[in-house]
């Protein structure tokens, strides 16, 4: 699970996993993102971490609904796994066109140049959202599984990882 050059703490307690599947409609996303944020808060993640995670879930789910949900019954699945030192999110959708998949891969594969993305009118709102996800996460991967479901997997470390006994209060 650790990404390139990154080490994560070996957790003693078992990861907590929550899975939610909801209709592929934008109107569900506010409730889902707030749910994820609240999950993190009740599991002793900091409010800052919860807020940033809320943004991540919002942007990825928006993308999933707009580009990955083609039929009336399309659904989006969000899996949230809370480890001692990190959170993993996975968002799955039925998948869009090949063009959408390429766009998605290009958006999350952009090199970290240390220069902030320039808003010059050429970047679409969709690209902007994934750019924010990339900048807020340690790892972002796009996968297509055997059932042709597109999934974005994101890992975000806990801000206060390593500060034993000093976890921020809810």
């Amino acid at each position: 699970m650790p990404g390139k050059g990154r080490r994560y703490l070996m957790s003693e307690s078992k990861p907590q996993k929550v899975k939610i599947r909801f209709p592929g409609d934008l109107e569900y996303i506010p409730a889902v993102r707030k749910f994820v944020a609240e999950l993190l808060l009740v599991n002793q993640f900091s409010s800052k971490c919860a807020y940033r995670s809320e943004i991540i879930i919002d942007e990825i789910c928006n993308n999933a609904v707009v580009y990955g949900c083609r039929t009336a019954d399309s659904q989006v699945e969000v899996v949230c796994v809370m480890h001692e030192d990190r959170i993993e999110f996975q968002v799955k959708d039925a998948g869009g066109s090949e063009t959408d998949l390429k766009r998605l891969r290009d958006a999350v594969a952009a090199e970290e140049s240390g220069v902030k993305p320039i808003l010059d009118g050429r970047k679409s709102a969709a690209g902007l959202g994934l750019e924010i996800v990339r900048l807020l996460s340690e790892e972002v991967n796009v996968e297509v599984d055997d059932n042709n479901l597109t999934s974005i997997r994101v890992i975000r470390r806990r801000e206060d990882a390593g500060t034993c006994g000093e976890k921020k209060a809810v």
Partner: protein
Amino acid sequence: MESQIELQSEDIQGKANAKLVRFIGDLDATNVETVIEKTFNLLNDGYVNIIADFEKLRYVNSTGLGILLHFSKSAKEKGGSFKIANVNENVYEIIEIIGATSLLEIYDELDEALESLG
């Protein structure tokens, strides 16, 4: 139905073409319509200088940011301005991450934004 957002607008003393608009709640893809309608109505009614008070704006995503940038552009095209004040730390971080701090007029305090109207 949409995520909760409310816009409250007030006159600004001594500035006939300006309005103070307080944003309350979350700004995301589900409620941009409400925000667009209210803000563009003001711009089209001649209130080309808008001060947006974000003190009670808890959350904004990329769609919301896109709308704010569009307001800024529209106001400038009409010879006015779209200024933002009292941005909370979390919202500011997102604006900063995407590099919009140089594209939006952001003030720490509402008074500063009001004074900048001249």
